[in-house]
């Protein structure tokens, strides 16, 4: 599994040229906790790479696994979902729902031989601006290491 991934990365790595690979990333952030943390990161002027394209959803529980698949198939190199920490959800249980859905999605991705680690789920509460910035840095770095998503432009749904 690991070897395969590297092989694909290598294949695309060449076409990406000598410049460092810049992943395109999609983030689904909940309106209540994670989006507030994103604001806080800005207020405290914490820096993170600009690769992430944030999409604000009211609740992380509104993220249909299809959205994640669609993003991956349309060329996102990684998808991150940010929600309220367990128990904190404004809508009572949305984050638990997304946790289950994404766990199922990751299993399916693995079964299909795809890299399930391109989908991250993280709980970032409203006051965790530093954690938001750190998570964005880590995510960008991890996806950069992985290289381009092999699904990019191969499938469409």
């Amino acid at each position, binding site marked *: 599994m690991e070897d395969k991934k590297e092989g694909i990365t290598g294949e695309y790595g060449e076409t990406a040229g000598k410049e460092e690979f*810049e992943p*395109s990333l*999609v983030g689904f952030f909940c*309106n*209540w*906790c994670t989006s*507030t*943390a*994103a*604001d*806080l*990161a*800005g*207020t*405290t*002027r*914490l*820096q*993170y*790479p*600009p*690769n992430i*394209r*944030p*999409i604000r*959803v*009211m*609740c992380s*529980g*509104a*993220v*249909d*696994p*299809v*959205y994640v698949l*669609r*993003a991956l198939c*349309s*060329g*996102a190199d990684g998808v991150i979902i940010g929600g*309220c*920490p367990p*128990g*904190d959800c*404004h*809508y*009572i*249980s*949305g984050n638990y*729902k*997304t946790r289950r*859905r994404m766990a199922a999605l990751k299993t399916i991705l693995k079964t299909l031989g795809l890299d399930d680690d391109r989908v991250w789920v993280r709980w970032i*509460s*409203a*006051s*965790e*601006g*530093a*954690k938001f*910035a750190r998570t964005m840095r880590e995510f960008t770095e991890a996806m950069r290491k992985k290289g381009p998503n092999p699904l990019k432009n191969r499938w469409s749904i």
Partner: protein
Amino acid sequence: MTTENRNSNAALVIGAGIAGIKVALEIAESGARVYLCDRQPHIGGTLVQLDKWFPDNHCGLCKILPVFNRDRTGQYCLRRGLLHPNIELLLHHQVKKVEGKPGRFSVTLKPEYPRVNPELCTGCGICEAACPVTDDANFNQVPGGHRAIFLHHPLALPKTYSIDAERCTRCGACVDACPTRAISMSAPDEGLQLKVGAIILSTGFENFDATTATQYGYQRYPNVITGLELERRPGGSGPFPGVLYRPSDGAIPRSIAFLQCVGCRDRKRDYCSSACCMYAIKEATMIKEMYPDTDVNIFFMDLRAFGKGHHRYYDKARDELGVRFTRQRVPAVKQDFRTGDLLIMAFDQSGEVITSRFDMVVLATGQTPSREFEETCQILGIKTNKWGFAATGAFSAVDTTREGIFVCGTASTPQDIADTLVEATAAAGRAMGFLGSEKALPVTPPRPGEEEAGAAVILCNCYGQVGQTINLREIADFCHRAPGVAYVEEVVHLCHPETWREVKARLSESGVNKAVIAACSLLPPPGLYEDTCIELINIREQLAWVHRDDGLKATEKAGRLVNMALEKIHSQEYVPPPEGESVVPGALVIGGGLAGLSAARAIAERGFGVEVVEKSDALGGNAGHVFSLLGGENPREYLENLVDEVKNHPRIHLRLNTEVVGVTGHIGNFKCTLKDERSETADIEAGAIIVATGAGESRPSEYLYGRAGQVITQRELEAGLASGRIDAAALRSVAMVQCVGSRDKDRPYCSRVCCSQALKNALNLKLLNPETEITVFYRDIMSYGFREEYYTRAREAGVLFVRYEPEQKPQVSLEDDVLEIRATDPVTGNVVIIRPDRLVLSPAIVPPDDNTALSRVLGIGLTGDGFFREMEAKFLPVDSPRAGIFLCGLASRPQDIRETITQAGAAAQQAAALLSRSRLTGGKAVSLVNERRCSGCELCIAACPYEARVKNVEKGVARVIEALCQGCGACAAACPNGAASLRELKDQQLFRILDAAL
């Protein structure tokens, strides 16, 4: 002096902490206007410094936001700010003068100087960079870093900088640096005059100044910190997120001691701060979660975990997480100067002095009135009690000594957040009585669909804050080329009121009903969302400020974000705002005890019909068994008056011997079936339901109760003394046993009122016969708040308090009609033997057995202890999980008479606010059903956390109750057929956004 012509159908709320916010929201949602003022330049008070709350270690602050008419209010985390069309924030203002009468107060407020104008400040931070003064005290409670002008709280809205007047040298550097000219140094001689109908005081508390407790070495020993510092240091927005460093050397502490009752329960402050035991347990829990191997030892006197769910939380900390609890008041802390470790000398059980070493010591400081509180009370003309908190009545926790002025939260008594929120709601309800006629919040009229006029794009440069990273010119050019863009407008200061007006005017002139606003996290004024489809993107906090090093990529990202937003609004179909559902303007109150009657009276006074249903043939419930309160007041007269008023009230209809057997429908439109003693049923409609079914006293099975005549309960003693059946003069010796059937494995909760009841009866006995020897066997005396004074008085009167461990309960035996009690004193190990004339037991308060049946009828759950469960223990302590059903009195938790009246007032306020609406509407963002695609699989019904989705049985498809839908989208994600979707974010829309993003 500027006099603003403002109507008196408004209330002034002084203090914008959690209590003030809750009062303001309640009044605003009842249709009146609110001025919410605070000395600080931000809202949130102490609360925003805390990340998590007991007893569930969660944050749930946003849950107090309004759920109806959501598009008018800010749907954001309250840590960012409060936005409501009926609430005007007057931050950094002080009340200077109050004149007039209830209903027609005239209040003078003055802004604090030096001042940063919140209307002009953009929060850019240029002033802070210009300020030459550094400041030590700050939000994070760690020294260093701050200038004299600083952002007190990085999440606050308005994001206004503030000046520490004491440290500011008035050099004027910031005044010159400020691009918006928002800073002024000197105070012009003008105030603001308001006409208000009622005033609510919610100024909160101040933490006890631990430096004055010199024996603990606070600020002399670096590793001695306060509880608040412990919250801030590892807090998510704190200086060291997620890690706890020892201040002296940055090591991870391996042992931490908590010292309770610092600044409380002493000669000078003979009261209990009520919340510190619980916050210490919470902090201990959080430390244990971070470092399971760190030894945490809480040194306490009485462990006061008396609130709902608190005792279970305490049990969990002790038994599952291994937090140690040591019953001891620590006399002093010493420091080992070589290592910075702290030494605590204490007696062990055998009386030996032992020295324990700790890496850190945390002082659980108590609550004291704020420094300016006395002055505020003088201005308002209200009295304080002897500890400097606002004085309140024996039967009302929210009425001050002056009519029309109310108090709530820790301004009147130390308490935790749940109790504060109950009081705040009750205070709002009382204040509404002084605010003239209520007007329902207007419902936005549906607007006819319009021709597609394109979208406007508004870009804010924020005085170059955005432009210094992002090339806005390029973005504007891109927008001009993008299809469907009517016009692009670049502004420098969008949040300036003048700019807003211009932007809004241009929007309405051009007939554009869709707009992308690329600005910052400062929220636009309310009212804009209602008829315009707006997509906000944050290009300051989420772009310009976080990608400073890479302007090129940041600009590219900004372009994409604008494109994504355009895709979203272009694919947004115009859907008229929901019409809403009608509301039946009447309430059903279940239970004719003190709680039910108080709630019924309060709702009827607000002009709504009330149907009171009582199972038995008498009104009054448990309150009828109480003959005096702890302070000596007589509750019987109060209860009789209440019963009379309820019986004679034209809008209240009483039904005795009646039960509720069926409830269908939903909030605003319940259909209830009642059954009377002749089994005849009646159907009534109600907009809201209040559950006030009370609780009972358990019948003790221990201590020979029922087998020996000398063994009675506290209630029997009280009745006997009142009626004269028990002659105090003939009593030589009386023993009392606390926690009979409470706080054990079967009932892991504290019954809360029994310690006060025992103190009351003991003091009464001593008053009637000072010769009577009284011995109280107890586990922890729960004399929280100002009840502590009576505990002291009882000890001074000679009442003997002997503690017992739950494993070693007192043994009672009866021989030749002589009662003998043997107990082992856990401190000395001595056996205490008493042969009393009477043994008085404090039995547990137990929920009635028929709660289970009623909970099924109502469709709301019970807690593990059998009381009715609330929606959220901390932030929604009156709401049941089913919208429109509210809880109060003993049905919800054990509590005393005054607390019951307060909670009944809170439930009544919430019900009245609901009934005052002509129609119930949620928001634009509610979910939809595409009936052609719906297979009726009911997955969405299972996924909905609000029971807003039901099955339309005739059609076999799902249906949405729009008043209940909160727009979370759980149903849309669960639907396998794409039949469920959100109005504001459909699947196809999201796919277009994704395509624009990638």
